[in-house]
Every structure is written in structure tokens, then in C-alpha cells.
């Protein structure tokens, strides 16, 4: 039986731009953010060559719908040529971002690159240098942006003597899903494949560890603050029909990270100026770079499973950080005195102090959500109000009508009818987390009002 390696990646979104604020006067960082998805894919290819991979799987969304460019096409064609020179084959399924009816390659792809058709499932066999089949790869591309039919159910069964892989770009939702309705159970029950190489979810996950292995590779490079993990791909080593190991190889040169500062923490509880806060934030940011490279892979399952390993392959170029200054403390009054001004000043200082170092740390945004320290005790004076408030807050979570009533008050900019893939640019997604933050800040505002107005 043959022993070989392959790379499982997806959601490359080549050409996508990293969303970050304030880089106008920093062309070098701007360039890095512009190049991040290219660099990540380059890291991926280099790793594949270095590790002697036989082939690379790209399970959908190689390109980004909102960042379609000639350059991305050319870059991919060039990369495939290099991989061809290294004897590595590339298997690509189109996803909802680059469906075949909307996207076509502008440059001639070399022979090593196989793009699955959209009108039918296809099986490709990978051969070893001696000419024997070592793996069978089944897949089907998206024809349009939405794919409502369970394409995977029509995948033909490959030769059972080789390692069998199925590529699928799915949200893994059963029912009326626009992204290939499927369920984990369906895939798990399939005996035709040994490995399901999934795409669409940008976070790396292994949903099933054996018979068959079902895994999302995540995206090689996060593109906004919703994708804060280190991007990468799976390097899978196979012996015959058995997986020997799965290593998560980090490829992302840039990482998004949200950091929260509690002004009530021991280091800041006695602080009485913005300087103290600045120092603490600078120190906190620098500590970030001293952490282990796998710090942002937060899936304990991945870290602990004996089959997997996380390796940092990419040189970290920098971090894009969004700060949230919260909590109760003495700094609250200083910060709230001119909240916007404080946010801007802190943001600028952090950019100036951390932006030029290597790896760079760029502050995208500073949000001040601190609360008056007296807020904590306000409700003791108003026990009835406290009970009522808690009751209302609890009801928001339980009562959809109440929740809708609140949401309807928040302004037309917010929408709960959003989808990650179909984002309306002029509307802001009001997700659970955002709503919670708004409610919490509203509560703090209310308590602050009570504290200030208690004495009439």
C-alpha cells in the first residue's frame, strides 16, 4: 500500500482584502493586508512542496465574489504551474463565491490542476510515481451562488482499494440550505469515502475522527474580526487507506484579534490617567506576540486529539487588533468625559507605538464601554427597579416578541435578517453578541443615569 501526503484547504478567497482602518498613511502595512490572502496561499503551496505532498484539495471558494480580480486568477495559475513543476496535483471545487457559471479561469491552467464540473460529480484518481492508483477524489462544483440540492448524495463510489476522498462545500445544515443541504450523520454514514474534505465554514474543525474523517480546514487567512483564529490547512498523511496523522499547518501571515481591557482589573483599578491605560494596553499587546503560535486555535479538541498537531508554518507579519475597554473603574469618568476623543487618542497612540514594529500590531478600533463604578451599587438603592430590570433583561432572551420590540427600536441600520454569505453592505448585522453588548451598554447607561439622578 502507498504512503502519501495531501493538503486539505478551502475558502482561500484569493484577492480578498483584509478589513482594517487607518492604514492610509502606512503603505507597507496596507500592502501586507492587501497581499495577505496571496501570501497565505503561497505559504500553503510552499508547505505542500516542502512536505512532499502528492496533491492539494481546495474545497470551494478559491476566489471571493466581492474581490474578483484578474490578478487573483493569474496568481492561482502561476501557483499551479509551480506546483506542477514540483509534481503536485491540485483539485478544485468551485464554491458559492466562485460558482462556475459566474467565474471562469482567465489563464490557462496547467495539467496538474483539475477543476470539478458543476453539472455532474466527477472522480479523479491520483497515481503514485510507479503508476498505481493511491487515491480517488470525488467532487462537484457549484454552478451558481446557491446550491440547494444534496450533491454529495450523487457522488459515485470510487475504487475501494485506494484512499477515497470526497470534496464538499457545505454549511452542513439539513433542510432548506443554500449551501448544499447535508448533515453530519449523512456524511458519517457514507461508506464510500474515507475522508470528507469540507469547505465553507472558515473555522478549522474535525467533526468526526474516523470512518470516515470529516473535517473543515477553515480559511488560510482570516479576513475580518469575525475570523480571529490563525488561518491554515490540514496536512494529512495517509498510509494505504488509513490516516496516520493530521497536522494543522498555519499559513496566515496576519491575524485578527479582539482584546478586552477591564479598567477594574488590579493593574488599572488605581489608574487615574490615560497614560496608565496606554501603558497597560501596550504591554498587553506586546504580550500577545509572546504567546504560542497556536494560541488562537481555540478548539481544545484539535489540540488534544492524538491524530492532530498544530504547526506554525507561516511567518507572522502582524496582528490587527480591535480593543474593547470595558469594566468599572476610576478611569471611567476620564474616558466617558470625551469618549470619542479618548477612543481616537488611544487608537492613534497604539497605532504609532505598535504599528512600526515587526510583527506589527495595528489597532483597528478602540471601543470604550466602561461603566461608572457606582453603577454596581446603584441597584442596591433601587431593589424593586433592580428586580424589574433583571426581569426585563431575562425576558429579552426568552420572549421573541419583546426582543423584536427592542430590535425595532435600535434603528434601521441594524438587521437580524443577515447572512454571512449574503451581507447587505448598508445594513449592520445585529447578531447575538452585538445585541448583548448593546443591551449591556444600555443597562450601564441606565444605571449611570440613576446614579446621577438619585439625589434629584
Amino acid at each position, binding site marked *: 500500500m502507498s504512503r502519501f501526503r495531501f493538503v486539505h484547504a478551502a475558502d482561500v478567497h484569493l484577492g480578498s482584502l483584509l478589513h482594517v482602518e487607518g492604514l492610509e498613511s502606512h503603505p507597507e502595512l496596507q500592502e501586507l493586508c492587501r497581499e495577505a490572502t496571496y501570501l497565505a496561499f503561497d505559504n500553503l503551496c510552499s508547505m505542500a512542496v516542502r512536505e512532499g505532498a502528492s496533491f492539494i484539495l481546495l474545497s470551494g471558494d478559491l476566489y471571493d465574489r466581492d474581490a474578483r480580480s484578474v490578478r487573483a486568477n493569474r496568481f492561482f495559475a502561476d501557483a499551479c504551474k509551480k506546483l506542477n513543476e514540483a509534481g503536485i496535483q491540485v483539485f478544485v471545487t468551485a464554491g458559492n463565491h466562485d460558482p462556475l457559471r459566474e467565474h471562469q479561469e482567465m489563464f490557462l491552467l496547467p495539467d496538474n490542476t483539475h477543476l470539478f464540473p458543476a453539472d455532474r460529480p466527477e472522480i479523479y484518481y491520483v497515481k503514485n510515481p510507479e503508476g498505481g492508483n493511491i487515491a480517488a477524489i470525488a467532487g462537484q462544483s457549484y454552478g451558481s451562488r446557491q446550491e440547494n440540492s444534496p450533491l454529495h448524495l450523487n457522488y459515485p463510489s470510487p475504487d475501494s482499494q485506494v484512499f477515497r476522498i470526497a470534496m464538499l462545500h457545505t454549511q452542513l445544515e439539513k433542510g432548506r440550505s443554500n449551501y448544499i443541504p447535508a448533515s453530519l450523520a449523512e456524511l458519517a454514514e457514507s461508506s464510500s469515502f474515507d475522508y470528507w474534505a469540507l469547505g465553507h465554514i472558515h473555522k478549522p474543525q474535525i467533526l468526526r475522527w474516523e470512518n470516515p474523517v470529516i473535517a473543515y480546514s477553515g480559511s488560510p487567512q482570516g479576513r475580518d474580526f469575525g475570523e480571529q483564529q490563525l488561518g491554515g490547512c490540514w496536512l494529512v498523511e495517509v498510509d494505504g487507506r488509513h490516516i496516520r496523522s493530521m497536522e494543522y499547518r498555519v499559513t496566515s501571515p496576519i491575524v485578527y484579534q479582539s482584546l478586552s481591557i477591564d479598567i477594574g482589573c488590579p493593574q488599572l483599578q488605581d489608574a487615574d490617567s490615560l497614560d496608565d491605560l496606554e501603558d497597560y494596553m501596550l504591554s498587553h499587546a506586546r504580550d500577545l506576540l509572546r504567546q504560542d503560535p497556536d494560541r488562537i486555535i481555540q478548539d481544545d479538541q484539535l489540540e488534544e486529539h492524538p491524530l492532530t498537531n498544530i504547526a506554525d508554518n507561516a511567518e507572522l507579519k502582524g496582528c490587527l487588533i480591535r480593543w474593547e475597554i470595558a469594566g468599572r473603574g476610576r478611569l471611567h469618568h476620564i474616558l466617558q468625559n470625551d469618549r470619542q476623543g479618548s477612543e481616537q487618542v488611544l487608537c492613534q497612540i497604539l497605532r504609532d507605538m505598535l504599528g512600526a514594529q515587526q510583527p506589527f500590531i495595528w489597532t483597528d478600533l478602540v471601543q470604550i464601554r466602561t461603566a461608572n463604578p457606582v453603577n454596581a451599587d446603584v441597584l442596591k438603592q433601587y431593589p424593586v427597579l433592580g428586580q424589574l430590570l433583571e426581569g426585563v433583561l431575562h425576558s429579552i432572551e426568552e420572549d421573541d416578541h419583546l426582543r423584536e420590540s427592542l430590535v425595532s427600536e*435600535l434603528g434601521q441600520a441594524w438587521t437580524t435578517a443577515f447572512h454571512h454569505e449574503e451581507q447587505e453592505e448598508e445594513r449592520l448585522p445585529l447578531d447575538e453578541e452585538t445585541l448583548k453588548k448593546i443591551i449591556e451598554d444600555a443597562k450601564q447607561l441606565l444605571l449611570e443615569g440613576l446614579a446621577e439622578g438619585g439625589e434629584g
Partner: protein
Amino acid sequence: MRIKRLHIGDFGILQNQTLEDLHPGLVIVGGCNRAGKSTFMQVLRYLGYGIPSGGLLPPANTAYMIDADVLEENTGIQYHIRLQGQSEPICSIAGQGNRVPASELYGVDSFTYRNLYTISLDQLAREPEGVSSKEMDKLQSALLGAGLTDIANIPRLEEGFTKAANSMGGTKGRLTTKAFKPHIQMIKEGVAAKKKAIAQVEQYQLQQAHLSELQNQKQSLDLNLERTKAKRDILETVKSHYEVLEEITALNHSLENEEGAEIPKAIHTENQSRVEDAYESYRERITQWQQQFRELADNLEKREQAHQIQKLLLQQRTVLQGFYDRLSGLQEKWNHLSSRKEKVAEDKHQLFMRIKGLNANWSEQDISRIRSLQLELLEESRLMNEVTRFQNTRNDLDQTQSQLNDIDDRVLKIKTKIEKWQKQAPMPGLKLYLWAFIVSALLGLAVFFLHPAAGLFLGLFGIIGSGLFVFFKGLGQKEAAIRLKELHGELDGILETQARLQQNKKRLTDQLKETGNYLMTVCKKLGLEQSIPPQGILEYYRAISHIQQGIIRLDKDEALLKEQSEQLADQLHEIKNVLSVFENASAGLRDLHSPRPCDVLQPDTWLDIQSGLKKWHGLMLTAVQSDLLSREADKIRTRILSLMGQTEEREHHRETPETRETMAAVEAAAGSLEDQVDAYLSACRAYSDYRKRIENRDGLLQGLKRAAGSERITKAFSLLADTGPEQILPMQDGSLLEQFFLIYDQYPVKESLEREFTGLMDEIRNQEQVLEECKKKIQATKLSLEQLSLTQELEQAHQRIHQGRNGLYQISYDYAVQKAAAWLCRQVRSEFMAKMKDDLLLKADGILSRLTGGNYQRMIPNDDLTDFSFVLGDGSHQENSRILSRGTREQVFLAVRLGRILEIQPALPVIIDDSLVNFDCAHLKQALAVIGRLSQTHQVFIMTCHPHLVGMLMDSGIPGQYWQLEKGRFSTAQGHELKEYLQLNTEAVKSLA
């Protein structure tokens, strides 16, 4: 809480008043108007909270001062409260001094206490006097209690949040409002830009396809242009070689009938140039021969003898050349012998002059005498040694003699010195001294007698002086002895030297004699006198010896000169003989021998022979040259005939020694040859002309071939051959040259070819123009593709969207927080109303029922809590308080306050300041019953000026304490006393009215 003692130090009209042992239940303070009842109420109102600044408070004389002891009944702790000025009240536990906040004692805030516990008539209204509209909510909360205090600020907060939100984004947070608009605009612009940028990809694909089409078009145009250019190149070459083609064609026609083509078969035309060269050479030789022969003849006495002389010269050529070759040697020899002859004469003269110089008496005859001297018997070396020896011996002898003379002088001098020192022979010292002593002593003795001192002095002087004299004298004698000894030694040495010199002198004398004898013998041999000094003998010997050698050498030279002259004479005689043969032949004479020259060293003799030899030698060379030229001419002629392919036609012209030399024969032969050569050359020229035309044609063909074979034309033909059926030119199989002629044949006149060429040039220009336009389009498309491949616009669009969304997020978030806060306020209040309304005012309901005698059973706050609705005893409802009578309304608000007072713990003192005046008797009685019950749990202060109220209180049996207040002064009183006091005051007031 109850006030046990109250001291008012300074507060308005109340100055230094103390109320001790205040009743724990009901305290009635009765007083007329302006007695200080309201002032007292304010003292109680502010006791636990401090006196506020501003307002309409009664002034202090110096500073407010109130002091009180209060008892907390629940704990039994007594506190002391002190108010000083307008500062915070100081509250401490009595007896301990521990300070505690006064608010801890009171439990309610100042506003609530003021409005709830200190009840004046003004306050028993829906909107009490002194309460601002802003404070109304708070008042409602205070009145209603049951948690309403907690939400007292909620409506105001909600209003604030709503206002803040509205100022940001309007009531609905529409995206068209000012705050959102710029961000939305930015996003829209970004989205539009993004769509445009993404559309670039489609544009790129279209342009890519367009580029492909253009490139195909260009390729086709390139090919067409190349083909047209190829045709142009071919036609251009044909055009530029049109005359050549014409000429070749004409040459081909003319050569077809050319008879010169046959000539090479008859004669050797290939030798034309060689024949021409040879014939030229032949002519040259003949001419030279004629010159040479004439030159020979001219140098003869008889020209007709030339042929004979030439023959003779050729015969004697070797001999004559031999003489001539030796001529320079003979000249040299003759010159040498002549100079030798002169030199021998000169040497002889010089020798004679030397002989005369040695001895003037000698003549030339003495030469033989000198020659005969046997000088070889004398050895010059010995003579020289003997002369030297003689001179050295004589010098040594002279020197020895001189030394001997010196020694004699020295002996004489030493002997003189010895004699001198001997005269100074030593004398005996003591003897001398004795004599001197005696003489001196005697002389001294003698004088002593005459003059003792002088005698003594003289005697001592003589003795000492003689002693000194003898001493020094002794020293000189000793030195003389030493000197004598030395002189004797020296004299002995000199005498010994003298003897040795004497012996040496004798030996030298003998030696001189021997040498002198030898020299005398030599003189004799040389014929010299004996008086000549030895050096003179030697010099003479040398001179005569030299002369003798010169004589011998001269003799040898003369003999050699003579011998060589003889030899030269023989050689010259031989030459002379040969030359005379030529001379004779030249003159036509017989051959005669010439005589032998007598003195060969005579210049005339030599010059005669030399010039003769040169002349005939020159003629001999001329003859030889002439002969050589004749031979060469014959050879050339033979070669010419051979080159022409002919043989000698005339046998008599054949070369023979007899015919060769005759001028006529030679010229005849030359004439014959000239004819033959002329005929040959004519034929050759005809053939050459034919060849030239052939070559001319071939050359033209070659040039044409080169032109046809050039890379450009080959490529052009190749290109046109590949173009398939649409051939621009009629191409056929065959060489390129043949193609050229085929094309040439198509254009019988050059003009038609030029017209075709011009047309092609126009076509090329058109095609180039089209191609250039196509290239420009390709370039523009490539540029467009390059532009479309840039992602700058896409990046800017995304950046713009991102910025817009971030801005939108910020403002929307802030708006949402404010709106959410307002919403929370509403929800909380709504919840409160929904859940708590029913529990409100339960106690107040009972009080109101009692106050109204059961007419009003229940009062319910409305939704905004600003008023009440009522349930009457008959079950009917009244919607608000505005429709009530004043008394009933005051009962309602008294009931509300008392109800709340009963609910609030701890029980605080209640002050009722003439609030019951509008109650009729029945309702007053019911109110007092309620107050009586209240006084069981609360300390109640009632301020009144009405005697009937006091009377009714007394009648009610409620335990209490009565205080009379008159112009700010308190005094305890019984109930009836106070009633009477108030009654009197009331009447007095009425009477005054």
C-alpha cells in the same frame, strides 16, 4: 424615633427655647398667627437633614443653632443631634460621642421627609406648593411608595435617552437622517465602485478575447504583408536587373551564330598573351643586338673587320677576361712596387744621415765597414751589466771613503772630549775641606783677637763655606768619571767600524779595476778612445748596432724589389703580346710580337698596357653581349613559333654560327616571324572578342544569380511558394534564375514592370497602415488589460465600504444603546405598573375610608401616577382628584401621606401644621381619631391656632402634651389652658376685625 428634648438656640423668631421631655405620642403646639408655629415646623423638618441655603427660611440672629436628643425606639439608643449654621447635622450616640450619619436615623431622604412627614395645608393638593414640576414624579413616588421611589427617575431618564437618541438619528433611526447619511453615502459609493471594479473582470475577459482576435488578425496581416513584400522584393530585383536581363537575352541571341567559337580548334589562342610577350621580347633582343654590333664596329680602325674581330674576341674571351680580372691586382702590384722603390731610396738616405750623425767623418763607403763590424760578439747585456757594475762599485767606494772620513772626525772629537774630562780629575774632599777649615779657623782666630765677633763670624763662615764648597765639588767629579767611561766605550765601537770600512774599501777598489779592464777592451773593439766614460761606451754601442741592422734591412729590401719588378715585367709582356694581336687584326696587319718592357715601373709603360687591356676587354664584352642577344633572339623565335603551334618554315633561317651574326640574316628572320605573329594575333583577338561576350553574359548571369540567390529573394520565393493557390507571381519549377527570366518574359517593356511595382508599393503601404492600426489596437488592448488587471479600484472600493460601515457601526451602536436604554426604561416602568399598582396605597385606602366615613373605599393611581381614580363606598368610580371638593381632596392627600408614613420604617416624627382647617367637625373628629392612632406608633406634632381643635383633642382622650407658643416662646400648658388662650386670641382677633 422620637424627639425627647429640643433646644432651639437661634432660628428666626425662636431664640433660646428648650422643650424638655417631649411627649412620645402627640405634641400639640398652640399659638396665634406669627407666634412661630411654622418656624417650629421648619425646625423639625430640617433637624435631621440640615438647614438648606436659600429659600424662604426665617433668618437667624447670628447663626442657626438647634440641639436635640432623640430616641431610637427599636434599639433604645439615644442620639444627640446638633445643627450649627447651615452645616450638616452632627449626630452622635448620647454618652458615647460616636458619630453616626443622621440619615441613618431618618431612613428617608430629605425630600420625602419634607413632603411626607411635615404636612402643611399647602401640601394637601395634587400639585403642592413649593414642589416643582420636576419634583412631581419624585413626590409621586414618595407618596405612593411601594417601590415607586425606585422608578421615580425612570421617566426622566427615558426622556433623556430618547432625546439623546433622537438628536443622533431621529425617532426611528432612519438611514436617511443626517447622522447616518454620510456613512451610508460612503458605503453606497464603495458598493458602486466595487461593482464597477468587479465588472473589470468581465471587461478583462472580453478584452482578452478581443486581444486574441486582434492578434490573429495581425498574424494574417503580417503574412499578407510579408507575401506582398516578397513579391515586391522579387519584382524590385527583376526591375533593377531588367537591363541585365535584356542584355543577357541579346547576348544569347548574338552568340548563337558567332564564328569565333570555332577558332580555338585551329590555333592555340590560349597562348596569345605569351606570344605577345615573347614577340615583344624577341624584338627587344634584335634591337639590342644591332646596337651592340654597331658599337663594336665603331671601335675598330676598320669597321669591316668587325665580324673577324668579334670572332677573335670570342675566341680570346677567356684569356682577355683573365688579364682583365688580374688588372686590378697588377695595378696594385705596380703601385706597391713603385712605392717600395721610393721607400728603399728614402730609407737609404735616412740611414746615411744617421751614420753622418754618429760620425761626421763617415761617408757612404763606411757603410760597408759598419756592415762588417762583428757586433754580435759583444753581448749588450753584459756590457750593460759591466757599465752598471762599474758605476755602482765606484759609488760604493766613494761612499765607503766618505764614511771613513766621518769616522776619523768622530775619533778625533771623542779623543778631545776624553782629554777634557780627564783634566777634571777628582780631588780628595776631606783634604780640601781640612785645608779650608784650618785657614778659616786661623783667619777667624786672627780676627777674633781684633774683633771677637767678626773673628767668630769669619771663622764659622769659613768653616761652613768650605764645607759646602767641598760637598758640591765632590758631586761634579763623580759625573766626569761616568762621562769618561762612556766616551771610551764609544771610541772603541768607532774604531771597530773604521777597521771594517777599510776592508770594504779594499774590496771595492779591486772590483773597479776589473770592470775597467773589460770596458777598455770594448772601446778597442768599437774603435773608441779610452777616455769615453762607461755610459758613453754603452750608448755608442747601441747606436752603431742600430745602424748596422738598418743597413742589413735595406739590403734585403732592394733585393726583393728587384725580384718583384722582374716578375711584373713578365706578366705585362704577356698582356702586351695578346693586345698587339687585336690591334693588328683591327688594322688588318699581320700578327707581330711586341718587345719586353725595360722598366716596368715606369708610369707610361704601365698606363699604355692598362688602357689597351681595358679597351679590348670592353670590346670583348660587347662581342659577347652581341652573341648572347643573337642566341636569345633565336630561342625566343623558336618559342613563339611553338606557342603559335607552328614550326620553322624556312630552313635557311635556322640558326647557325655562320648565319647568326649577319645583320641581314637576322633582320630577314625577324621579318618572317613578324608576319606569322601578326596573323596569329589577329585570330586570337577575334576569339578573345567572342570570349569576352561569353564572359560578359556569364558575368551578367552570375550577378543576376547572386541577386536571385540573396537571402531576401530566396526567402521571398520560398514564402510565395508556400502560399498555395493564391500565388502573387506565376511560380514554376526550376531554378530561381529561371524564375527571374520567366517573370522578365511577362513584362515585355520595363514600364509595365514599373507599373506593377508601383502598384505593389501602394498595396504594401496600405497593408502596413492596416497592420499599424492593428498593432495600435493590440497595444491599447494590452494596456487596457493591464489596467483591468489592477486591483487598486477594488481595494479602494472595499476600503470605502469598510470605512463607511465602521462609521455607520459607531453611530448606529451609540444610537442603539441610547434607544435600548430608553426602551429598558419603558419596559421597567411598564413592568412596575403591571405588577405593583395593585399593591399601592392599601394603607392609604383604609385611612381615606376612615377619614371619609366610608364614602371612599379605594384610590388607584393612574398609569402615569400623576393622579388617582377612586372607588366609592357605593362601588362607583371617580376618575381623578380634580372633581373632588377641596376638603375631600385634602383628605385624600392626607390619607395618602399617612398611609405612606405608616408603611415607612423607622417611625419618624410627623408634623401637622394646621392642615385640618378645611375639615368639617365630623371629618375633623375622624381625622383626629386617625392621628390619635398614628400617635401610638409615631411622635406627632400638631401646630394649631384653633381652640376647637384643642378642645376636640382633649375630648378624644388621646394622650398628649400641650405647648403654648407665644411670640416665639414655648411654655407647657394644660389642654384647657391652651384652649382658653387660643380662644381669647381668636376672639381678640375677631373683635379687632
